[in-house]
């Protein structure tokens, strides 16, 4: 580990082990292989999961085998679907990133390295379960069969944008796919998801809510509200912390402090707590099923930490080589989530390199074709565009007179 940088006072400020120029070495992070913790009954006492908050639940070994108590009962078809969803998510991310670089979009955010979290999680939920995602779970939409054209239209803020240009790229809203409107304000949706889940219980429904935060945003008050209210009212929900090691330029130790895991934050609230290898799609599926069952049966909420790695920049506005070693992502010891599920399927005899290359191409082609259709509907500054006057809509259910007058003022401005 790198030596701590000079600090002339007793004020302790944590620093990441490696900075640009360092040769990162993660041998201090133990990669559990066989000793994945046991799987308690989903209706167990929350105490029984305290150790799970500090361990790491894994299903797939690096050689493609599966091991331990958490192996989910999934058909090869479903596993192939998961792999394809992850590949499609990645293909879309790559295309959109490139298009942003060409000036077609104001902004984009990839989920590279984290596809197993969104896809594995979504696969284990019911369609009636509402998800409250951040901007890095586009895989949920892909898994739930949302229209990629609509997603791209949103990113382009074009004439086909379901949000009519009101929001920045990636901040989707797809109620029809159980995908809550993403807020640009970090953390806020955590407690809203708890409220949504409370409403499900109130209505005696079987559905649950599942909400996401990055590890960085756990520092917001909303995270505390969510854990506390979920505990008090035994809300049927899942609180997912995606620990991808980085906020923007801050490493996870800034949010974590002297704590040992983000899952462990839930322990003091009496919530179930699981920590999972977030690059292991089957493990993500397994812990999600466990937590969903617990929630659905009235056992209350589970905090799941998805331990993963943000392989690329925070967004198109970011350059990670400014604050971490260039090869950090490569030496990260948990591998790539797509490759890991691929290796597993190949080992099973349910997938091969040719199929993989073929689907890679197919996904790329599909994304390219879809993007073409999207661009034909315009971009934020060219082609068919959203009518400017739509900006006055959906502020209120019934717009106040003062707002209608402003619409008139704007008409006069345009002449």
């Amino acid at each position, binding site marked *: 580990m790198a030596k701590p940088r000079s600090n002339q006072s007793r004020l302790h400020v944590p620093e990441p082990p490696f900075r640009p120029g360092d040769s990162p070495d993660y041998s201090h992070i133990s990669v559990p292989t066989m000793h994945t913790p046991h799987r308690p009954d989903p209706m167990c006492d929350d105490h029984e999961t305290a150790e799970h908050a500090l361990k790491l639940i894994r299903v797939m070994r690096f050689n493609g085998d599966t091991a331990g108590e958490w192996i989910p009962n999934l058909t090869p078809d479903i596993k192939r679907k998961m792999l394809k969803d992850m590949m499609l998510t990645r293909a879309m991310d790559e295309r959109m990133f490139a298009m942003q670089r060409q000036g077609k979009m104001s902004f984009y955010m990839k989920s590279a390295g984290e596809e197993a979290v969104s896809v594995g999680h979504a696969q284990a939920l019911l369609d009636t379960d*509402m998800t409250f995602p951040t901007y890095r779970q586009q895989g949920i939409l892909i898994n739930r069969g949302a229209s990629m054209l609509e997603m791209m239209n949103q990113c382009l803020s074009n004439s086909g944008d*379901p*949000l*009519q240009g*009101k*929001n920045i790229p990636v*901040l989707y*809203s*797809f*109620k029809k796919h159980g995908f*809550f*409107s993403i*807020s*640009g*304000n970090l953390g*806020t949706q*955590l*407690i*809203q*998801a*708890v*409220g*949504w*889940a*409370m*409403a*499900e219980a*109130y*209505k005696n429904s079987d559905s649950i*809510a599942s909400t996401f935060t990055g590890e960085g945003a756990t520092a917001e*008050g*909303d995270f505390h*509200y*969510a854990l*506390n*209210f979920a505990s*008090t009212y035994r809300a049927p929900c899942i609180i997912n912390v995606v620990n991808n090691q980085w906020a923007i330029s801050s490493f996870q130790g800034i949010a974590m402090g002297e704590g040992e895991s983000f899952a462990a934050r839930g322990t003091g609230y009496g919530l179930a707590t699981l920590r999972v290898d977030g690059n292991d799609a089957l493990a993500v599926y397994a812990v999600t099923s466990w937590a969903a069952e617990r929630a659905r049966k009235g056992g209350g909420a589970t905090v799941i930490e998805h331990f993963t790695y943000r392989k690329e920049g925070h967004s198109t506005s970011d350059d990670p080589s400014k604050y971490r070693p260039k090869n950090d992502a490569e030496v990260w010891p948990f591998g790539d989530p797509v490759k890991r599920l691929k290796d597993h399927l190949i080992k099973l005899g349910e997938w091969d390199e040719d199929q993989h290359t073929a689907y890679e191409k197919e996904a790329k082609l599909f994304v390219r074709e879809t993007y073409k259709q999207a661009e034909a509907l315009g971009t934020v500054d060219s082609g068919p565009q959203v009518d400017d006057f739509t900006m006055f*809509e*959906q*502020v*209120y*259910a*019934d717009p*106040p*007179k*003062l*707002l209608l007058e402003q619409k008139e003022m704007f008409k006069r401005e345009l002449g």
Partner: protein
Amino acid sequence: MPQMSMIEAIRDAMDVKMTEDPNVLTFGEDVGFFGGVFRCTAGLQEKHGLHRCFDTPISEGGIVGIAIGMAANGLRPVAEIQFADYIYPGYDQIASEAARLRYRSNGDFIAPLTIRTPVGGGIFGGPTHSQSPEALFTHISGLKTIIPSNPYDAKGLLIAAIESDDPVLFLEPKRLYNGPFDGDHESPSVSWKGHELGEVPSGRYTVELGKARQVTEGSDITIIAYGTMVWVAEAVAKNMGISADILDLRSLMPLDIDAIEASVKKTGRCVILHEATRTSGFGAELMALVHERCFYHLEAPIQRVTGWDTPYPHAQEWAYFPGQKRVTAAVREVLEAA
């Protein structure tokens, strides 16, 4: 017609809606078994069940946050914030989330919630039990801000708020909970009993959000007020023996700009009252609007009478409160101006 205090009228509004619509529920600090520190939810838990009227942790951000999630999921939550002075930890959830959800999702999700909270001074509550923060909310597009001045309006407006598809902030002037208050703290308190506006129909009725109430009709001057200050205005006009158009706004956003404009165009003179801090208070917006629309009809500069640009002090409460003296002086000046 039943006689009610403002507390009872507010409680009755919730009771009516909870009885009629299973999606309506209410919660907040001390709201459940105890029935609220001002007793606005007394009896509702017993009548409607533990799951429909309950206590929350002391967490205004959490309270608004769950209300948003519930509202997006089809319920009609009525959340109580114990004092408006404590609403700020929930400010982000109100301004960034409740008010913006419809817009940012282009109508895919909405947040039809109501937040009730007591405002205003007059009970020696000092800096943290007396604030009137309405202007911090009227600046937030997407939010409705309501403030009744009497039991009849309180019930009708609260029912309309619960039924509104927009998030509504419902401000309750705590000094009016038990009776009208004309700003003279030395005279004995009056109750709503026997008061005309304390006559509150049973069952459901609404008062439209966005319509002002014409308190008195007159020709000399327009006095724009809301909440407690409506009663101060009425007392001042009466004592001065002037013919005033007094408007009780009831709803700050949406605003009854037509009523305001018509009145000032008629009288040519205008005084605006509020209890909140002067600078950047809602009076500034009212003054701007009147100026923009009625400039050529004004025979004197508009004046506003407000609380000072200080926190609400404890011992100096009545020196802070814009009472009859301060209002009278302003009205006189405006009337006497050439």
